[in-house]
């Protein structure tokens, strides 16, 4: 079978020149299909004598194996080629922007609420609440501020008519501070008491540092042994944790609130430059809260025996804490719903606060 080598050369050439899988298959069929050239040769073996048949069969098998191998290799090659062509075809400009997503925000007031709750929670406080519209007893009288008390004029109060009385002294007020929650807590809970009461408060005032509505957080501790030393410790631990400054400078000044005695105000050290406020260092002072030992008259108004119980109370501005910690310049902007402001000063949804996992910057970068 002289021409087998020629046939092999012919088929291998055809395999090598098959330009795509379809053409390669045509070559395969032409060689090894039912009527293929190799198949025909195989068929013709039957007419040969046995010895020749064995020898010719061997050669034909060699030819078939060689062709199969060549086709398989060509197929792999062509498939790779085609994949590469497809990949090249499918290439896109990945520098194009991805689909837009809007990432919402948590308002700074809510963020500070969560931070304050986390810190005082660590010290065993619970969160108490009270209504925004108050009666004058809870907002004033029970807090040792009878009608003619000069301190009442210090708080520009909003009034709401009492539907059951025409007497102005019976009118309701929109609470001027969170302190009425002190009374409501004492009315409903027996000591020991450790609560904070964050919430909305209202005074008739409007400029860069005063808005008719703002937020305070009240603190109240009542038991039989708490002293002003605990008050100082509690508040120092708080400001240190809140401002995340270990050696924050603080000072206390004697002050006056009708509902505490002795009373004090707490300042934190700071440096005021032209446009910048640096907390925790420097020689200037910044007032951040008022506090004191609960006045015996207030304990009595809350239904507790002042000879048996004592404790401390404090109050501070949540918005003010936000302004100081996060460098927000103007209080009025807190309440303007300006999306640009909310996006800039707000906090990302995953930024939750805890004492174990950290107070701030837990939500990753804002997008």
């Amino acid at each position, binding site marked *: 079978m002289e021409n087998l080598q020629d046939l092999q050369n012919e088929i291998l050439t055809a395999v090598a020149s098959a330009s795509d899988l379809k053409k390669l298959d045509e070559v395969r069929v032409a060689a090894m299909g039912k009527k293929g050239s190799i198949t025909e040769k195989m068929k013709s073996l039957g007419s040969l004598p046995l010895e020749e048949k064995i020898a010719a069969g061997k050669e034909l098998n060699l030819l078939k194996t060689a062709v199969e191998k060549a086709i398989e290799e060509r197929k792999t090659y062509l498939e790779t080629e085609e994949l590469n062509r497809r990949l090249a075809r499918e290439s896109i400009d990945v520098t194009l922007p991805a*689909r*837009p997503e*809007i990432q*919402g*925000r948590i*308002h700074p*007031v*809510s963020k500070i609420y969560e931070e304050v*709750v986390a810190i*005082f*929670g660590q*010290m*065993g*406080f*619970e969160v108490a*609440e009270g*209504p*925004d*519209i*108050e*009666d004058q007893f809870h907002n004033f009288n029970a807090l040792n501020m009878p009608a003619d*008390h*000069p301190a009442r004029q210090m708080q520009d109060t*909003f*009034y*709401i008519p009492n539907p059951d009385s025409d007497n102005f002294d019976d009118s*309701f007020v*929109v609470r001027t501070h969170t302190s009425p929650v002190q009374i409501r807590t004492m009315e409903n809970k027996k000591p020991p008491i450790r609560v904070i009461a964050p919430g*909305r408060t*209202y005074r*008739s005032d*409007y400029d860069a540092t005063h808005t*008719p*509505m703002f937020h305070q957080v009240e603190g109240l501790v009542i038991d039989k042994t708490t*002293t*002003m*030393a*605990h008050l*100082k*410790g*509690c508040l120092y*631990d708080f400001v240190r944790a809140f401002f995340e400054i270990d050696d924050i400078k603080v000072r*206390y*000044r*004697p*002050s006056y609130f009708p509902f505490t*005695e*002795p009373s*004090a105000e707490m300042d934190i050290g700071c440096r005021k430059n032209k446009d910048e406020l640096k907390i925790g260092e420097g020689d200037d002072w910044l007032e951040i809260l008022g506090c004191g*030992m609960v*006045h*015996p008259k207030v304990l009595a108004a809350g239904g507790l025996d002042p000879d048996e119980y004592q404790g401390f109370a404090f109050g501070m501005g949540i918005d003010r804490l936000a302004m100081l910690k996060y460098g927000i310049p103007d209080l009025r902007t807190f*309440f303007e*719903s*300006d*999306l640009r402001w*909310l996006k800039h000063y*707000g906090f990302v*949804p*995953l930024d939750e606060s805890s004492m174990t996992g950290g107070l701030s910057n837990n939500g990753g970068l804002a997008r």
Partner: protein
Amino acid sequence: MKFTLSWLKEHLDTNASVDEISKTLTRIGLEVEEVINPAAKLEGFVTAKVEECEMHPDSDHLHLLKVNTGKEMLQVVCGAPNVEQGTIGIFAPVGVIIPCYNEKLTVGKIRGVESFGMLCSEKELGIGEDHTGIISLPKDTEIGKPAAEILNIDPVFDISITPNRAECLGVRGVARDLAAAGIGTLKPLEIKKPKAEFPCPIAIRVEAKDVCPVYTGRYIKGVNNKAETPKWMKDRLAAIGLHSISPLVDVTNYINYDLARPLHVFDADKLKGDLVIRMATEDEKFVSLEGKEYALNTQSLGICDDEGVQCLGGVMGGLAKGCSDETVNVLLESAYFTPSCIAHTGRHFQIESDSRYRYERWVDPNSNVMGSDYATSMILDICGGSASEIVVCGEENYSAAPVYLRPERVKTLAGLDVSKEEIVKILTALGFVVSEENGKLKTVSPTWRGDIECEADLVEEVVRMYGLDNIPAISMPSDEFPKQTLNPAQRRMVTVKHELASRSMFETVTWSFTDSKLAKYFRTSEADAIKLINPIAAELDEMRPSILPNLLLGARANIVRGANSVSLFEVGPEFYGRKPKEQRLVATGIRYGMTAKKHWLGGERAYDVFDAKADAMAAIAAANGPYDSAQVTTDAPAYYHPGRSGTLRLGKNVLAYFGEIHPSVLKAFDIKGRAVAFEVYLDNIPLPRSAGGKSKKKLELSPFQSVDKDLAFVINKNVPAANVIAAAKNADKEHITDVRVFDVYEGTNLPEGKKSIALGLTFQPKEKTFTDAEIETLMKKVITEVGKKTDGVLRQ
């Protein structure tokens, strides 16, 4: 409260520096707001001598000087009329900042001649009002000395006085506190008894003895109210911001600030008949100094003559009988009015005055005669004249009730270790009379203190003098493991906020107030409006009945700024009544505009009612509420689009409203286009029962493959899709695990009044894989049930 250093030193013998005094004031509770010390601005200013003085070659009033600064001789052009050769003045060299102008001095060129500095007036240095010429110092003044050392500069302290420290509304009270704090010694107050030259010609009678326990009057005749108030008094009054008016007014103002002792002076020639101190009658007229008329009531105290109320006692003088330049004979009032009467009158008529301010806090009830003597002496010194005997109605016999202090309370209340001896020393220095009784300290307050009522008040006195800084700081003891800080309702409020923020919404906080003109769309009647008696602005005159008007206002502001996508939410109170607790906590949100700006991949679309529905359901779920089992009804309030809104409810209990805002409401807010909103009533969402543990329901995983099948039904248009879904679900609750709507169609190919709803159904076998026959049976069940419940037929 302002005062100058020299004024303080009138009462306090001290060498303490301004800084030391300032720090001490703040430390003892008299917080320093500001110390205005002109000397601090005079660095670089020196004394200098005019060696030569010629006329400016090109001016008829300017002088050309050679000024010796002690270091050099400089050419200076000067316009002051009082400059001459030999004048020693205060020289400002080039480069310093002139306090009056707050500008840096540069080399000037005046009418062609250069000037290297200037000689200054008092006003230019910020140390006085004089600007008629330059300061001229004595001839023996050393030249080249710093100005601050040579000039007699009086720094001004501005301190804030808390309402309990009324005695510190007088400089003497401040001096006394400083002395008790170890800053110098309190000087004795020396007041001459004026000579009584005749009996008081005006009879004085107090009828309202309970509110005016002591009233003194003294007649002074022949005064000259055109006399000049002495410079020292004018300077001190000017330093605290009071203009000199006339000697009589200046003296009463001065004593008010010096001793916290209010006084009043009547023009005696204008008074008719006796002076009677009585309560006013109902609607009795009074015209104040400022010319304002008041209709008094029976709780107003009047100082009256035959012609009516001439002075609202302790609050404000009257116009008719006040002093003028022409006044010759006066009646001087020095009296004690009770704080509550003054406070009530001042508050009722909204009159602010220095006198009211002091009386309603505390005025020493025993200081009437002393105050009268002090003022009379000053008036006689300045204005001349002669004084009558003093008429004293009532008795100056006030004595405070004793208050007891257990010395150990300083430790057990304030946490401060102070010995009994030290406590006694501190209280005595403050004017308390202290004695011991059964181991307690019996203290009697000085008459100038009206604020000491209980033991805690005395502890405060000790603490503020001993120093708050000496109290140790002790961390809160923690003898038990802390409970959860937030209760379940508080915790879920936090979760709802984070859920909504994670749904691309921006949390805002808006006023609890709103504009009644806009609020009306969100309540049923005007009678429900919770109006403030005294709103801060007309558009903040009502407690909000809904958060929505505020969010819509916020949205509009953003739209006006060009925002084309607005998603705002707020979690806060809404008010449904005027009484405490008539409020509810609501999570409210609005969305306006497009989900995104145009993008190359597309996909941006307008927000629609189903965004609001999804938000509401997500918020309910975040609050652990039954978001998927709540019914949806189509009865949302009237501020929603009637055909594009709904209520999520559990029976009568409304969990949420959602929908498009009604177009006419949007118009009232001047918002064009559509806006969708939701309101989730957090208080209405049942709290999870605490019993039952935290264990999750067991997970049942079927080993058999589920099958998805689609069925479309033709039903009447007015049948809610929810009914079709419910019918399909209920056809076989065990095996139909999910029903979806994948198409809703109305229009051609359907009969009039019909719509088609295509359901995607998931069948889940429990025991073995479904056979075709079983699947067929399930589908038939669905078709039957939907037909029964909704009259729906399979779409062919």
